[in-house]
């Protein structure tokens, strides 16, 4: 009813209303769901039934709506559409453009088609129609459109059948209903944007028209969407009025007589009662409510049954810790931490923080309740049933008992204990020392480039050579009759005549050292590539020119052979020189890794090379590798062979001293972790069962190392003394240590340019 006036405005031509209605109805029935407001459309279709309620709504609403719609109808596009539609309808009407009377008859025929309920509506419509004869065909149906026969009569067929046709279907009279001209999308979009009522419009594809919902309809839809009754004034919970009232009625519903069983006692019940009676008599059923109370507790442990615990061995839980003084309510004042201490707890780790801070309460009445009482009990309970229990052996031993039982040091005397002498004179760190085999002299080499010979007992410096380069190693010839000295400095090895021997010896030496240069020149063709034997006039000796820096020089026990070590010499890193012949040769084995130190076996023709990782033992006669001693330390720095030849000690740069018993195993027999810093040198005493190690931590350790001839007895190692006295210079401490060949004395060379002699 609302929209009607608007349509009239739009078209301005009278129309066959009946036909319009029918078409509309058809349209509405097949509203397609391609619109956005699909449910609304459906709801509208459904709500059409209830439209009679709406139809009664006041005239004001209609008017207002019509006004609204008026504005819409002004839009050109719709107008054109509508007008076209009208034309079609008019054509269909076939010249029956008359007034309301015709409409009425049509209506009645529509009613006869099936929807006769809503006559009122039609009347209303009629009245409207009557009031505005000039009104156009109503496009938008009002709520009563269901009753109106749809304009299109194609029925429930897929609409795409008509997709390519010019018409959308047929009206009641069988005439084609032509399609309206399509608006371009842009136009329709613009129109929809401009139109504030756009959201109410639904396109009905079936009837090919736009339907606009009235306010009432939208309200209806809203209520339906909420699941309420469509009408606000409908009460779904109205009191039920029973149409049938029995009161005062004369006759009963059933006329059957009461059965007999209602009047006689039940047999089965009496049987049941009898059974109960018997049970009671027999005492099967008792009526006393309380069962007899037995004493709840009794002497549980008094019976003489064998008391053995079942199950696995029981491990009793440890008892809670007993409280100390600090837990007292009034502890001694020294147990109460100061405020600073309490503050410092905040900086500690959560676990390390004390759980309990003692506090003084001046009287018992001021002690508050302990707020963690229940929590702690609970924690204890959790511990009791959740903690795995293990029987752990509590090590309740005296730490002293852990220390091994060592023989008393007094019994192992003599050994060096105190610093007896200091040899002063070097200007730089003393890198190396060596004792002469008679024990009368020592030689020392220093970083200041000098080699000095000292008299042991007096500390007098006998001789000084200024080599000019850092002295790496000095070595006395082990033969007493040849007091000559091998000195490694830079790329050269000097063999110097010390002049310490007697006259005859001196002659021999001169002979030896004199002859050699010629020999060397003779042999230079052979060994030129390796070493150059040159006469050194400046120092009075032989100079062996190497091609790389020499770090170690070692004499063979017979005093004729001399081994030199060049760590960076690769395959020619270890060379053996023969003094008497002036020969030089490589050792006939492959060496792996960078060699650090070398040593001759004291009795047999066996040669030791220590690389950073291991010590390799070669047989010089058979020319093959005998053994590999694996120290398992980070970096080997020095090696020394026991005078017996079966044991060796190896010092490492991580401060460990390994004793190898070469008969026993290739692994260390004992690892002594004595120094916190690098070990720089190790040494055996030639005759006493002593050995020593010196390190950059400015100490030297003296050990008792007894090797037994009995094969079943392992060597006995006892630490004897820590020798201190050197001071650190440049991070280096003691650089070398050597024993006196006869006495139990130890010489140490320090980075503080001192040589010290420790005596027993």
């Amino acid at each position, binding site marked *: 009813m609302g929209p009607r006036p608007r349509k009239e405005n739009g078209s301005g031509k009278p129309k066959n209303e009946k036909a319009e209605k029918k078409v509309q109805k058809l349209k509405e029935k097949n509203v397609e769901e391609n619109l956005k407001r699909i449910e609304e459309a459906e709801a509208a279709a459904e709500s059409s039934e209830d439209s009679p309620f709406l139809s009664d709504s006041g005239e004001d609403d209609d008017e207002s709506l019509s006004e609204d719609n008026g504005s819409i109808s002004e839009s050109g596009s719709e107008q054109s559409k509508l007008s076209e539609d009208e034309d079609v309808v008019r054509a269909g009407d076939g010249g029956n453009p008359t007034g309301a009377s015709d409409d009425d008859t049509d209506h009645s025929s529509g009613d006869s088609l099936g929807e006769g309920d809503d006559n009122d509506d039609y009347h209303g419509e009629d009245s409207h129609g009557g009031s505005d004869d000039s009104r156009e065909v109503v496009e938008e149906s009002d709520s009563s459109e269901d009753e109106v026969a749809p304009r299109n009569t194609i029925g429930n067929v897929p609409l795409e059948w008509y997709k390519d046709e010019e018409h959308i279907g047929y009206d009641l009279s069988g005439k084609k209903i032509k399609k309206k001209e399509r608006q371009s999308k842009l136009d329709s979009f613009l129109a929809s944007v401009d139109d504030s009522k756009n959201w109410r419009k639904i396109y009905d594809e079936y009837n090919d028209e736009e339907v606009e919902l009235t306010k009432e309809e939208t309200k209806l839809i809203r209520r339906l969407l909420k699941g309420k009754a469509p009408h606000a004034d409908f009460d779904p919970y109205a009191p039920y009025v029973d149409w049938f009232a029995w009161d005062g009625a004369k006759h009963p519903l059933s006329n059957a007589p009461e059965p007999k069983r209602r009047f006689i006692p039940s047999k089965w019940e009496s049987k049941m009662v009898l059974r109960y009676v018997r049970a009671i008599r027999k005492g099967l059923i008792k009526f006393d409510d309380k069962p007899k109370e037995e004493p*709840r*507790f009794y*002497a*549980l*442990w*008094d019976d003489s049954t064998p008391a053995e*615990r*079942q*199950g*696995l061995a*029981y491990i*009793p839980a440890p*008892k809670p810790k*007993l*409280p*100390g003084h600090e*837990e*007292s*309510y*009034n*502890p*001694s*004042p*020294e*147990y109460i931490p*100061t405020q600073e201490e309490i503050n410092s707890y905040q900086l500690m780790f959560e676990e390390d923080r004390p759980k309990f801070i003692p506090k003084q309460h001046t009287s*018992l*009445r001021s002690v*508050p*309740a*302990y707020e963690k*009482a*229940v*929590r*702690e*009990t*609970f924690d204890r*309970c959790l511990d*009791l*049933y*959740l*903690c*795995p*229990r*293990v029987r752990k052996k509590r090590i309740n031993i005296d*730490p002293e008992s*852990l*220390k091994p039982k*060592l023989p008393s040091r007094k019994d192992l005397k003599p050994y060096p204990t*105190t*610093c*007896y002498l*200091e040899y002063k004179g070097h200007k730089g760190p003393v890198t190396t020392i060596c004792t002469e085999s008679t024990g009368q002299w020592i030689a020392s080499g220093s970083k200041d480039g000098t080699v000095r010979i000292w008299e042991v007992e007096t500390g007098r410096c006998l001789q000084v050579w200024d080599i000019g380069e850092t002295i790496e190693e000095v070595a006395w010839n082990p033969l007493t009759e040849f007091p000559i000295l091998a000195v490694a400095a830079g790329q050269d090895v000097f063999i110097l005549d010390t002049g310490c021997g007697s006259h005859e010896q001196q002659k021999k030496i001169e002979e030896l050292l004199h002859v050699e240069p010629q020999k060397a020149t003779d042999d230079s063709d052979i060994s030129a590539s390796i070493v150059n034997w040159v006469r050194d006039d400046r120092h009075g000796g032989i100079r062996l020119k190497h091609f790389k820096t020499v770090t170690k020089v070692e004499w063979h026990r017979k005093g004729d052979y001399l081994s030199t070590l060049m760590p960076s010499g690769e395959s020619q890193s270890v060379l053996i020189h023969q003094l008497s012949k002036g020969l030089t040769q490589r050792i006939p084995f492959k060496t792996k890794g960078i060699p650090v130190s070398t040593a001759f076996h004291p009795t047999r023709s066996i040669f030791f090379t220590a690389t950073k990782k291991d010590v390799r033992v070669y047989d010089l006669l058979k020319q093959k590798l005998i053994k590999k001693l694996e120290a398992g330390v980070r970096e080997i720095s020095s090696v020394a062979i026991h005078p017996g030849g079966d044991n060796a000690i190896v010092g490492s740069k991580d401060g460990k001293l390994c004793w190898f018993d070469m008969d026993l195993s290739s692994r260390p027999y*004992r690892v002594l*972790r004595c120094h916190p810093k690098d070990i720089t040198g190790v040494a055996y005493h030639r005759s006493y069962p002593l050995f020593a190690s010196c390190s950059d931590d400015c100490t030297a*350790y003296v050990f008792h190392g007894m090797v037994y001839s009995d094969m079943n007895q392992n060597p006995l*190692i006892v*630490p004897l003394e*820590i020798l201190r006295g050197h001071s650190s210079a440049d991070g280096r401490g003691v650089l070398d240590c050597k024993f006196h060949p006869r006495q139990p004395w130890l010489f140490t060379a320090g980075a503080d340019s001192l040589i010290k002699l420790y*005596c027993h």
Partner: protein
Amino acid sequence: MPKHYRPPGKKKEGNAAKYVTRSQAVKNLQVSLPVFRKLCILKGVFPREPKKKVKGNHHSYYHMKDIMFLRHDPLLEKLRDIRAYEKKVKKAMSKKNRDLAERLLTRKPTYTLDRLIKERYPKFIDALRDLDDCLSMVHLFAALPAVDRAVDGEKIPVDRVHNCRRLSHEWQAYISRTHKLRKTFISVKGIYYQAEVEGQKITWLTPHALQQVLPEVDYRVLLTFLEFYETLLAFVNFKLYHSINVKYPPILDPRLEALAADLYALSRYFDANAQSSSMKTKAITSTGSEQVEDQKEGAELDEAELRLAQLQQQLPSNEPGALMHLVEDAASEDEEDVETRECKNLFKNMKFFLSREVPRESLLFIIPAFGGIVSWEGEGAPFEESDQSITHQVVDRPAQGRKFLTREYVQPQWVYDCVNARIILPTEKYMVGCIPPPHLSPFVDNEAEGHIPEYAEAIERLKAAERKEVLPLPGMGKEDLDDPQNLLGIIDRAEAIEAAKRKQKMSMLEKQYHEELKLELQGAEYSAPSTDIEGRDAEGDTAPDLQQLAEDAANMSKVVMPRKKRKLLEAMEIGKERKRAHVLRLKERKKKIDEAKKSA
């Protein structure tokens, strides 16, 4: 084939077969986790630590035998029944089948833990050994208010609290009557007691009688433990009561509940009982004697019950005469060891009166345990405050209303300190209104700890004085003991003698030490320059040398030790060092405090 692969059909061996994780165990037993937990708690099954943890480190492992042990327990079936029953009740309730539900409620399946207790503690001594946790927990629950309330969705039933209170009173009654209490300690957490029963030292903690904080914990766990502990303690009490020829449970009377509810109610009940036996409260000794006679005869049931009731009362209400008689009657006198006798006679012939504000329950427990007589302010007290024979009044108020000159007014700490020291301490430090001397823990071995608090030393001195001077005066009796002036004089004299002796000794030692030092110095001086070319000055070097020597010696023995032992030694040294640091800190603090005092 991987190493861990086990061919099908081959059984597991070793740790994989012996130990199962908790979830496996739960699955194996076909119970829910709460039921499993309950079973474990009641049966005393705990996880074990396998040598090799097959399933990983983060699991807890149970021994398969333990699980089998649980599986064969009838309790498991019972717990299943209970679960089924609960389901039935729930179903009936939700179907609004009230009749069925009510009928079911009358037939709740129950279980008893007697067998489990016997199983876990085959001998009585085993039970006593594990009684610490039990007592602490029962006392804690006894201190909870007996109000019905829901905590964390879990109710602590009121009757459990009442039961705990009753049990704890029973236990304390026994300990007090047989004078087995040895040590007491007021800590911030509560009051610790240590008793010695059958040679077992049993320590427990009672919280302060204040409102307890109830945190959000799983109370089901606590209540399950409590369930076991209640039963255990009841059986232990039974055994202990019977060992002194007293019937247990003490009172088969509905009024028991009122008794267990409060000590006050208990005393009132005692009054009523005394009246019914047509005895006046004043005629205490006669009641006692009659009770003894009753006990000897033990003929009439009524009489016996009455007597039992009275026995129960006697402890908290402190009928001294009757108590003594009973103990003597229990024929345990000759079995008493020296310590018990000492404890029994500590407060002998002393009469205490407790003011309102002191912790009454604790003192009512302690004082009779050491042979004293005690009364308190309030109804039902055996004697009034105005009683002239009262020797000590325990007060914890800054100002006291009226003062009796015949008695001493002490703070409660005095009682505890006396008990720990086993002597009657002078009271002037414990006077009302002043801060008492520090309260020290009797559980600490001061010598082992390394630091002896000042007051501990003072007590030691007093004890020594007691032994020398006071003990040989047995004829003097109570007056002498209690006269503070006299006692003080004696103590002072003894102290003076002791101090003088000590001084002498100290000076002797000092002299000796100095001489030794001198000798050493000289020796060093002689030896050093002779060996040294440089001639280092000996004074500078000798002192660190000695230290160095000791260090070297330690170092050298370490050098030859195997790594395992060396690490162990290092760990020990760390522990020692920590302990030493603690003692040092204490001493430093003490020094500072002393200095502050001096300067002030």
